[in-house]
């Protein structure tokens, strides 16, 4: 097959990939610094914190990167406002290209479960699967909860002007549980579905390359491909493979991120019994 053959379908814009890249780097940094603080009593947590300059410095990094994430979410919210098709509003919000949940997602979820168990045919997904929509909105809910509680704790003198000091206790536990949920979801569920299941193994580099393999998309998202074909838009979104160097970089970077996430997950699970909650 010629390297210029259009065998891939455009899925993400460069700006969307940049958002994902920054989120990925920031999330891994927050996970590492947060776990370094939480596991500071153990050698594992101690060494993890040393990467960032120690127990206290890890907190400083955690706060600055956290503020960066909150800012990133605000910028992304503005970006969303620009991306909305205001002429077709509000119907455009519930179209197949929108990430907003719609009733078909619930139907797809149960049909998918039926397919897992051998009861039914796999659902014909459109551009976004229900699990991708969940991942997308989970980031919003996660950053909102973790961000607000994090800011409360990062600026305690200011925040306790407007709330009692015991609010810091409450904020701490909300922050901690939500962060553990986010890490567990990302490092187990997102990593497995996006990269480690057979369909995508060893890595789905769509997010790094911007385009998905047409064959794979045709197999997993037939409704999307047939919609584009019927609308005569398919040829316009077909692209050729990225340069080999870009693909290699995508693989190296992606594998490094997955390895870092699994290292944090396994380290946290192994050492969990040695820490004081």
């Amino acid at each position, binding site marked *: 097959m010629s390297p210029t053959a259009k065998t891939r379908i455009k899925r993400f814009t460069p700006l969307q990939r940049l958002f994902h890249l920054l989120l990925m780097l920031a999330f891994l940094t927050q996970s590492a610094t947060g776990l370094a603080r939480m596991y500071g009593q153990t050698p594992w947590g101690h060494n993890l914190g040393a990467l960032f300059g120690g127990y206290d410095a890890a907190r400083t990094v955690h706060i600055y990167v956290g503020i960066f994430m909150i800012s990133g979410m605000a910028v992304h919210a503005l970006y969303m406002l620009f991306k909305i098709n205001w002429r077709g509003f509000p119907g455009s919000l519930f179209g197949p290209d929108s990430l907003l949940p719609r009733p078909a997602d619930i139907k797809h979820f149960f049909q998918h*479960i039926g397919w897992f168990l051998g009861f039914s045919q796999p659902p014909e997904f459109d551009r976004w699967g229900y699990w991708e929509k969940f991942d997308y909105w989970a980031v919003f809910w996660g950053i909102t909860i973790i961000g607000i509680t994090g800011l409360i704790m990062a600026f305690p003198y200011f925040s306790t*002007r407007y709330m009692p000091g015991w609010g810091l*206790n409450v904020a701490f536990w909300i922050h901690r549980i939500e962060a553990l949920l986010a890490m567990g979801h990302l490092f187990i569920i997102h990593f497995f*579905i996006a990269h480690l299941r*057979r369909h995508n193994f060893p890595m789905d580099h769509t997010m790094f390359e911007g385009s998905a393999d047409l064959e794979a998309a045709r197999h997993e998202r037939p409704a999307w491909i047939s919609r584009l074909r019927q609308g005569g838009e398919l040829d316009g979104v077909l692209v050729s493979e990225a340069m080999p160097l870009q693909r290699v970089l995508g693989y190296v970077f992606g594998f490094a991120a997955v390895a870092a996430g699994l290292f944090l997950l396994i380290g946290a699970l192994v050492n969990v019994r040695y820490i004081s*909650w």
Partner: protein
Amino acid sequence: MKKKTAIRAVLFLCAALLVAGIMLLPPPAAAQDEVTSAIRRYKDREVSTGYYEEYEVKPRRESPFVEIPGVRRGIFRYSPAAAKVRIRTRLADSHQGIKFYDNRRCEECHIEQTRDLHTVRANLTCRQCHGGEPIASNAHYYSPMNPIRRHAYVCAKCHEGSSASYAGYVVHEPNPALASTFKNFPVLAVAFWVMVAIAVGTFVLFLPHTVLWGIRELFMKKENKTSESDSQDKD
């Protein structure tokens, strides 16, 4: 004979000097106010940090004048039985009357209070916040721990600029998972269980989903992509 007498005299002199020396030495450390044992007190923590000992002093031995509004006023006698029933929230010496108090460690009774972040992560000792003996009850009017001055007398030692509101942070936070926390810190207990429900709900939904998906794809027949795409392109 003279030789034996001389040896006895030397031995007697040595014994006398030894006795005199022992009498002239300072009394054994156990009799001083400083707690002496680096092994019994805080055990491994003591060895690891080394700075607990200097804050440890035994309680004073007087019977302080205490006043409990509506309960009792006057000199309290030391009494183990009375100690069990005394209301300790407003005492000048909150540990007054506790049996063998001077030989006990804080954590023998306050074990839960040694497991919070200030103790475990910041390595604070009890004395660094609660001060030396006698430790007044938190609600005693002159206690540094009284909420009217805690922020300035205690918290501000490390948290410069802390306010009275800031000092409302619960240092000895109850375990949020316990049922008793619904009574003594209900907001924390509710927040904790709501968050746990969200987290558990997410995992209960998506973990089996992920596992089933992985297994299903593992045993899926490999499809002939070329023939499939060709047939679709012909549509």
